[in-house]
């Protein structure tokens, strides 16, 4: 090698990349599937030249060089093409000849992933594997006076209420006077959180909707799905399946036009309206659909030009303040459906959650509050927001629940918790912990993608290219060449599978605690944790 070969500050070697491709020359059949499937073109076909020194015996003649050429796989070291560890190459390789390996010590790429002065954006969730929810134990198991229930055979009632529940006194008065009752839905406590038609591929969306419809109509589980901002396919808006859907409206009002136009033709009311003010993954930040994913269909549904990035502002800019905005939006959305549909805001968990909640308790039309914690996921956000901003969900939710307890309004204003539930795969345990800390129901998004569609993302910065429209599984891409990889029927099947297993696991948790006839919302006396500070903060038992 020349001593003055151009090595710039940004020149990287393979060792500098967090993911390194291991390729076995002997096993490779050179079929080319790996390079064609790589979403980021991290690998390319390479031509290698090999030098062999032939040394004759006896030193009578000089050694000679023999050169041979062979073909193989080369990993690119340009930061723009850094391997994301999705392992699609391995999945398509007929001989298991290639795989990405994570090198924990290689951090150099981090310092070079902002070329051109643009910080890194990505999809997914915070790159941190820790989860406080996983540390919580369920421990109020009385073996003496309360026989544990048989989770498999006992009758359980696991539904929860979405909507403003009046106090008993108000309820009696309303009944006696035949007055207006706030709309309330009795639903399953695990809700599929907002992932928009725009963020997700049509196949993924269809699969989710089919799964939800099956759970409702065939299995009698009142499961609901939030649309996320960005509208809803016109056919769904006019179908009887709309009652299983929570329509999300956000500050960008994307897709709102489509919804308004469909109102007169709606056969059924939607389950609820969720007004999105914030996401846990990027608190105080708006939604962002990058231009890669704004194709013709998405542009049409959202009423925007094709191929432009669609940032949704972090606040409702037409209104003066958050208090006014929440009040007015709730009022106008309620009015749109004749006060027959629950309307609630979704905010990022933050130090102002309590302020928003306090305003809501005084608003008779507010149907709940969804809080998204720091571990919430998203299709596109700045790396710095995802990794370093936000408020953990457990303590934020607990504070909100305790505030409701103080004013005697617990369960009157349901709290919906989201963000990092099932992060390590422990969906039922995490959900049960949050319910016992005070959530009326929980929302999951990323888990659904991982369980139902095989999303490859992990908390170790794997994949995370949801924003670029190159999702290797076809979950978050609007490119038909990619999303046709995903079979909607199979997604629906997996949605049903994981809901049923969640149901069994939830029963396995609450049955030994002796609960069967009502969801154990606020049953914090059942919880313990071996971290004293966490125990003090959450008001649960400290156990070691």
């Amino acid at each position, binding site marked *: 090698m020349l001593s003055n070969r151009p090595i710039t500050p940004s020149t990287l070697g393979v060792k500098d990349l967090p993911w390194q491709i291991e390729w076995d020359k002997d096993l490779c059949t050179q079929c080319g599937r790996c390079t064609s499937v790589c979403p980021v073109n991290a690998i390319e076909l390479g031509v290698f030249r090999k030098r062999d020194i032939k040394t004759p015996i006896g030193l009578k003649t000089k050694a000679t060089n023999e050169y041979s050429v062979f073909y193989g796989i080369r990993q690119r070291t340009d930061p723009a093409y850094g391997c994301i560890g999705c392992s699609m190459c391995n999945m398509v390789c007929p001989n298991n000849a290639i795989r990405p390996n994570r090198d924990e010590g290689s951090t150099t790429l981090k310092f070079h992933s902002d070329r051109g002065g643009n910080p890194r954006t990505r999809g997914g969730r915070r790159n941190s594997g820790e989860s406080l929810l996983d540390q919580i134990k369920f421990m109020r198991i009385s073996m003496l006076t*309360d026989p544990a229930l048989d989770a498999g055979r006992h009758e359980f009632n696991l539904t929860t209420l979405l909507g403003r529940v009046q106090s008993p006194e108000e309820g009696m008065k309303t*009944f006696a006077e035949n007055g207006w009752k706030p709309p309330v839905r009795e639903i399953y406590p695990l809700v599929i959180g907002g992932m928009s038609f725009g963020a997700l591929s049509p196949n993924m969306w269809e699969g989710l909707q089919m799964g939800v419809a099956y759970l409702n109509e065939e299995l009698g589980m009142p499961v609901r799905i939030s649309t996320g901002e960005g509208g809803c396919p016109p056919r769904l808006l006019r179908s009887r399946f709309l009652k299983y859907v929570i329509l999300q409206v956000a500050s960008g009002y994307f897709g709102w036009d489509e919804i308004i136009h469909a109102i007169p033709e709606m056969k059924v009311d939607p389950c609820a309206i969720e007004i999105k003010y914030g996401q846990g993954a990027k608190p105080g930040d708006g939604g962002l659909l990058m231009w890669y994913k704004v194709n013709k269909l998405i542009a049409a549904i959202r009423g925007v030009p094709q191929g432009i990035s669609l940032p949704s502002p972090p606040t409702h800019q037409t209104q003066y303040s958050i208090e006014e905005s929440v009040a007015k939006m709730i009022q106008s959305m309620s009015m749109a459906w004749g006060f027959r549909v629950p309307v609630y805001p979704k905010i990022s968990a933050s130090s102002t959650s309590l302020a928003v909640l306090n305003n809501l308790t005084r608003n008779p039309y507010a149907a709940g509050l969804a809080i998204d914690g720091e571990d919430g996921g998203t299709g596109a956000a700045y790396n710095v927001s995802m990794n370093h901003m936000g408020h953990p969900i457990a303590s934020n939710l607990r504070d909100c629940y305790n505030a409701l307890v103080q004013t005697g309004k617990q369960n009157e204003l349901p709290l919906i918790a989201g963000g990092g539930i099932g992060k390590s795969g422990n969906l039922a345990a995490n959900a049960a912990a949050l319910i016992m800390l005070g959530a009326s129901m929980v929302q999951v998004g990323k888990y659904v993608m991982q369980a139902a569609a095989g999303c490859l993302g992990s908390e170790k910065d794997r994949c995370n290219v949801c924003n670029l429209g190159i999702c290797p599984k076809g979950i978050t891409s609007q490119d038909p060449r990619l999303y046709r990889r995903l079979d909607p029927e199979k997604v629906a099947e997996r949605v049903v599978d994981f809901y049923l297993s969640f149901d069994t696991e939830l029963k396995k948790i609450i049955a030994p605690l002796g609960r069967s*006839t009502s969801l154990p919302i*606020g049953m914090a006396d059942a919880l313990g944790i071996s971290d004293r500070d966490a125990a003090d903060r959450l008001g649960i038992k400290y156990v070691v």
Partner: protein
Amino acid sequence: MCRLFALTSRDPISPMRAIDALNVMKEGHDGSGVGLYLNGLSGPFEELKDCPILSGIFTEAGLRRLDQFIMDKGFKSKFSILYTPHTPPPVGTPVRGTYAAIAYSVPRGWEDMTEAEQGVRLVQMRLDLKKMGEETGDMMVFSFWPDTIVIKEVGDPLEIGQYLLLDRNKDIYARRILAQGRQNTNYAINLYACHPFFIEGVASMTNGENTAFLPIKEYLESRNITGYSGYQSDSEVFTHIAHYATKKLGLDIRAYKHIITPLSDGELAHHPDREFLTDLKRTCRKLIIDGPNCVIGCLPGGHMFMTQDRKKFRPGIVGGKDGIFGFSSEVCGLNAAIPDRDKSKDFQPMHLDTAIVGPDCKEIIQCSQTDQLPRQL
């Protein structure tokens, strides 16, 4: 599992009859305490029906403090039963002092107050006295209400009954008696945690464990109703729910069952009161109990009831004859107390049922949650 026994009789009877029934049911670790609620009193208390009776245990200093406190409020003692045992107490029972039931005449001006206002005042006075007693340990106050005596003590029910000479004093014969034999299996012994619990004429006792205790307790406490406090026992909430349902919401006792164990949506779909009951289920969702429990209670009008949680893992049986009916957690207790009844008419409430016997002690009214309710509002 605690033993529960209740009697409702047209003629006053001795509380020992209920205690004997508890003794018949005794098994295992029973005998860590006894609680008695007496209503429809005979003797001199019957003449003083409108006078609130304070019941509790006091030391000498406690009695003096009580007198001072009560006099300051303008109450005057009319009749009292003060019993200071001189025999050594049974094993496990501490020496406490004087067991008292004192009837007072109300101060001037009380007649102008509504019944509800009077009720709140009496509850507040009981709480104040309880607090005073907790500071120094010289007073324990269980009830302060007309025509009501509550006795609680640690130890074997039969031995306590004999120790307190309950059989000999005809002044404490009563028409309605709730008795609980405590089996202390989970929490530390505390007399205030002993059943039956009492608030403004509503008394109840329960066996089993209330797994929904914490959320219900938090909800009741947040109602800001005088007397919704304490909760040394996970079962105290049952009394308060009954009080809340009947006194604060103005509902019939049959609706109590719909609050603590609402029907499923499928069962509600064909119910004649589905609209009302759906509303009730939603608004009172925080008060759903999750047992296993059998609840026996007594209401201000003299109605006695028994009901179960939805799991129905705790037994309960009601039986009797014209003039006297018993509510028991086991049939052997009922057999001991009312042996000459028609056993074929015994009723064991199932998960939808409430059994009610009115003050006339004529019959057991069997109510199912699937029945139409009387008009509530």
